[in-house]
């Protein structure tokens, strides 16, 4: 075999692997990415029921209700609009009213969000970037400031 042919085989093989990988990536990007929305986006963009999305915002003060077993219900707000979230499971340690939170799941009939994942973050000052950005765009929060109170007066005194 000549050097040129050997190199041809090598490059051809590598290109085949690359082509397969590109195919896999494109397919996966079409099927398995999840869009992030705020409660206001749900109305504004008309997200259909049953589509898997991430919903983020602040946990509305006074909205957390525990139901049967490990069922929990709470509301996520971006201070303009509010969406009820139902979740079955153990909430993360940093889940608290007034804190930034990201949930993942599907919208059900009656504007109820059925979440199967709830993410609250490691650090109590940490704001998920999507939430921070969404709040900043609405002019509700500046970087470095404590999270805005989910509904004005009560949480101000709760914050240390």
């Amino acid at each position, binding site marked *: 075999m000549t050097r040129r042919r050997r190199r041809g*085989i090598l490059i051809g093989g590598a290109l085949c*692997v690359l082509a397969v990988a590109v195919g896999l990536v494109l397919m996966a990007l079409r099927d398995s*990415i999840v869009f992030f929305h705020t409660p206001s986006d749900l109305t504004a963009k008309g997200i259909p029921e049953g589509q898997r999305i991430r919903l983020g915002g602040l946990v509305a003060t006074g909205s957390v209700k525990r139901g049967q077993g490990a069922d929990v219900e709470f509301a996520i707000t971006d201070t303009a609009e509010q969406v009820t979230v139902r979740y079955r499971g153990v909430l993360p*340690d940093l889940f608290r009213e007034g804190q930034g939170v990201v949930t993942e799941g599907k919208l059900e009939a009656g504007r109820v969000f059925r979440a199967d994942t709830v*993410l609250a973050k*490691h650090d109590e000052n940490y704001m998920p970037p*999507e939430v921070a950005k969404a709040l900043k765009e609405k002019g509700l929060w500046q970087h470095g400031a404590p999270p805005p109170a989910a509904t004005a007066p009560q949480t101000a005194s709760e914050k240390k």
Partner: protein
Amino acid sequence: MIVELGHFALVLAFLICLVQMILPAWGAQIGEARLMRVGEPAALLQLGLLIVAFGALTHAYIVSDFSVSNVWANSHSTKPLIYRISGVWGNHEGSMLLWVLILALFGAAVAAFGSNLPTTLRANVLSVQASIALAFLLFILLTSNPFTRLDPVPLDGRGLNPILQDPALAFHPPFLYAGYVGFSMAYSFAIAGLIEGRTDAAWARWVRPWTLAAWMCLTVGIAMGSWWAYYELGWGGWWFWDPVENASFMPWLAGTALLHSAVVMEKREALKVWTILLAILTFSLSLMGAFLVRSGVLSSVHAFAVDPQRGVFILGIMSVFIGGALTLYAWRAPSLRQGGLFAPISREGGLVLNNVLLTTATGTVLVGTLYPLALEAINGAKISVGPPYFNATFVPLMVPLLLALPFGPLLAWKRGDVHAALQRLMIAGLLAIGAAVVVFAFVERGPWLAPFAIALGVWVVAGAISELLFRARAGNAQGAEVLRRLGNLPRSVYGTAIAHAGVGVMVIGIAATSAWQSEKILTMRPGQTAQIAGYELTFKGVAPNDGPNYREIIGLMTVSRGGSLVTELAPSKRQYNAPPQATSEAGIYVALAGDLYAVLGDDAGDGAWAVRLYFNPLVRLIWIGAVIMFIGGAFSLSDRRLRVGAPSRRRPRRPVPTPAPAE
């Protein structure tokens, strides 16, 4: 005073770096030996100064000197000593100081042990190494000074994030950084090689052990992080395909590829251009990892509140080093002389396949990690790319890699024989098929692919053992003679086999725990019993407890199997004082078949508590596999051929030391 001394040492180190960056490279250019010789003392001095700086900060942490802003923000007087020390790198400023310290350590290693390297190569390597240190020192001094004082002095600190107060996480960052930064060695050698316009086997002989050492540290660092996430985050998972995890995983994948291509370069002088590129890419991915973690641009379970201004600075560092290196590469790489020829089916061919698959896999992880950022920049849409993406792209690329893995070491250099290799792997193949059949017959639930994944793991482990037996020519000898021959095999052969077996062990663990994990979420009243994976778990109620810097509520549980008591579990919910933050401690019972994992949830009222139970079959094999890979690396590193360091400048004419199979 000590703190100011540390700050002063840091500034001096910066100046030394400036000297070390300019003079040796200039000397190498004009052929002036006296200028080149500046590199070694400068590198050692730089290390000494950074040890002083790091020591000063550590001292401030140990004595809880809250006049230092960094100590105040990340430590607390009631914190146990070990976490006061680990607190030094448990924050942004301190961890960057650790980063440059390790960088200096590697630079000093070249100065101390590199006396047999060609003088100009050594001078250039030290210059490049200094330029990296220079950039990061500037970053620390301008944006992240750990020595800033506070006035008035606060009475007590704010404390370290409690989930970082953990033994595994105390040592996770140093290992991870040793890995990240260790790849700077390969980078510096690649740049120096490009500047000189020549690289040879001696180059690869130097780069390989350092890359191997960095790779070992990174392996352990990632495994520690995964283990920590497993028991500390309370989700029962060991890997989340989280951007920050990916940031450490990408350099690991690229580093693994580099490790293998450097073998080809050392033994056969082939793949030079590619190896150089890979060395640049590996360290570039490390830099990108630092950027992603430190800039806070990504939403991640591991992201901490960070200052976006710093991200811009690191982005600048990244652009200079990656862009500069790639430009130099584009300019100089064509002039590198091509090395040995080989047939597609050969040891080299196998290693090329390894490289193609590993780098492609790195690419898919990179796309998944950066796609959300790119999309948001383009049209503002915010998305998350989660495990489904990575399972659909990364895993299919690993299957051919694992299938081909046992063949590689059994093929001869230049031209291999697949039939012969297949014959030698006959028993391994039969064992793998047997394993699949057994799993298929005895485990009823779970995905149908799972038995094949287990078989793949068994195939890799058995293949590694087959390779050892083949090299010892076990087929035509009896007991004692086989043992004698096994004892005579070079350590690097053992290193390869052990590391590969570690991969197989890890694959078995991943397959088992992904396929057959059981999960139960329920509310339990005292006295209630839950069934999981054949265990009966009884909730006895909760009890309060006070720790050194936290209060906790412990859930008391007894675990029995078939009526007899097995163990007691005590998952707890902790409330730390400083900073005031809640964490969960999982209760874990480790059995041979897997882990029984319990997390205490919220108070559901009336004495009932939410409880989350998992049974994670064979999950320990994942970390055991990583440790085995580390041990394999250590074996290779201790091989005499590598320990000797760089060989003489003339190309070694020795025959390939491992017995090459007859063609």
